[in-house]
């Protein structure tokens, strides 16, 4: 541009700017894995609105607080009443708060991937050292981590509170560990489902609506069918097994099934009967299968989204 020529007669401060010529860069170039990590940390921060506008911080932060406040109240109650146990199991907490978690996924999954599609930033990423797989992994890992932070934070509050209330240490630690495994699985599953749905639309609104729909409709349908099956089995229909099998069809009940079979949780299924160990294996396989399938679908999706 014409103004940038180092003309001696130009005004004082401008001359100073112009005298700094172009400097080449001889420093290190850290390559693919560093770039992937950068994308991961940028996406993870973005999932809580950090590095973005004030407006985009409101919802994730609010949901984070909403997740933690009940835990804090429960701890306060437990301490005050000198209870022998916490009012809710570590494993049960996320199931109770599932609406908040779904809302978080619905708001942040589109934020993470739909924006890149909408504003066509994706080609810029792929014109740099990273590959399709790096992009998918970074985004997947970032949302799963964000969800883990969201779901594990209240468990930490519960655990610290339980120790302060001098509840049984071994018992609490075991429950806490089981809870962490459970929310880790939940984070991966929800992140996968949310990202797959969001990656198919460049419109954030559609993404939000679709994720909410999938999460709540599947849960609503499964709960209703389970309730019907439960009522029938009480009337002598003899379909208690059906409750367990129906539970495979929504993300929340899937996690519920896995943890009641293997992580010592009490099931939230009607009648309080979770899947048996045999059925539990199917639950675990389906959960892991879904996570893998989400990853595969994302890879396929981004193979097509090139320049």
């Amino acid at each position: 541009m014409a103004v940038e020529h180092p003309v001696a007669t130009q005004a004082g401060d401008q001359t100073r700017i112009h005298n700094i010529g172009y400097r080449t860069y001889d420093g290190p170039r850290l390559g693919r894995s560093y770039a992937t990590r950068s994308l991961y940390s940028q996406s993870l921060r973005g999932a809580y609105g950090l590095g973005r506008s004030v407006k985009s911080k409101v919802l994730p932060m609010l949901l984070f607080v909403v997740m933690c406040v009940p835990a804090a109240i429960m701890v306060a109650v437990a301490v005050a009443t000198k209870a022998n146990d916490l009012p809710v199991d570590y494993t049960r907490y996320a199931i109770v708060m599932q609406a908040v978690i779904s809302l978080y996924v619905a708001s942040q999954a589109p934020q993470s991937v739909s924006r890149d599609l909408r504003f066509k930033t994706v080609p810029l990423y792929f014109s740099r050292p990273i590959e399709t797989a790096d992009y998918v992994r970074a985004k997947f890992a970032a949302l799963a981590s964000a969800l883990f932070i969201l779901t594990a934070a209240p468990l930490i509050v519960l655990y610290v509170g339980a120790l302060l209330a001098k509840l049984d240490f071994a018992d609490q630690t075991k429950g806490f560990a089981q809870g962490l495994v459970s929310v880790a699985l939940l984070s991966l599953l929800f992140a996968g489902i949310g990202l797959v749905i969001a990656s198919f639309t460049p419109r954030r609104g559609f993404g939000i609506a679709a994720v909410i729909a999938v999460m709540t409709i599947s849960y609503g349908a499964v709960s209703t069918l389970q309730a019907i099956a439960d009522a029938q089995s009480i009337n002598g229909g003899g379909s208690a097994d059906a409750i367990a099998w129906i539970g495979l069809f929504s993300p929340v009940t899937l996690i519920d099934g896995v943890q009641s079979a293997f992580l010592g949780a009490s099931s939230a299924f009607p009648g309080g009967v979770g899947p048996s160990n045999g059925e539990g294996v199917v639950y675990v396989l389906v959960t892991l299968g879904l996570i893998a399938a989400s990853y595969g679908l994302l890879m396929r999706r981004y193979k097509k989204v090139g320049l």
Partner: protein
Amino acid sequence: MIATESLSKRFPRVTALDRLSVDVGPGVTGLVGANGAGKSTLIKILLGLSPATEGRAEVLGLDVATKGAAIRERVGYMPEHDCLPPDVSATEFVVHMARMSGLPPTAARERTADTLRHVGLYEERYRPIGGYSTGMKQRVKLAQALVHDPQLVFLDEPTNGLDPVGRDDMLGLIRRIHTDFGISVLVTSHLLGELERTCDHVVVIDGGKLLRSSSTTDFTQTTTTLAIEVTDTDDHPDGTRAVRDALHARGVDVLDGSGGLPGAGHILLLTAQGDETYDLVRDVVADLGLGLVRMEQRRHHISEVFTDSEQGSEHSTDTQRKEAVGHGG
């Protein structure tokens, strides 16, 4: 910088590139072609993002088929389309893109500040990109392509959507990328006139085939034709004719510039032999007491070399225009 060897890309229905063999050296190279000529496909292959159906290509001496990541680390890319998120500032965006190119955090920030300054973004770089004008957005797009100090940049239609002034600024900037920054440039456009002013070398492709590849000077400086227009005075009612006769008397052949167009009979064309021709014309016109309305170089435009149905007919902006206002009358 770039070398392709019978490079082909076929899609189920279209052949985007058809045995294209071209060598591009350092400097600013223009890649010209109509829409759909295969420009973007070529860039995609050169970035190692899309495998060629046959043939091979090298960028910076690296094979695109196997060394894609290494190429993309040393090459910058400015896409044709919009690619900027509106809710972040230019600084944040370019820093992020620098880190995506492998620059450590501190270096990414320093280079971002430098690069944005070089492309001409100052205080506004802290504001969200959503509020930028098209010209400013193009500069941000250019900055993200340059921020990691590549050896070569691909600029895909960088002047798209800019007004004439913005276009000139952008072309000047592209020129400086090579002269001041030492970065080689491959710039695509469907406007031949633009590339003529900016590039050292022009590659023309059409339908995926190479039409011509040669340096800009070959195109435009084979002949220099001067166009002259003078006023009439009472002494010389037909000034044009008087000048023609006077020049003829001094041994300079004058062509008639009319070409059958109305009003064009007042324009004289002659072949310039050097600075003496300009002096001669000046002296002749002054001796006759005529006013010199114009004396300009008629350069051969690239579009004359390729009389395809290119859209590059925008040559009214003659950079070499020299106008002299008459000496009395």
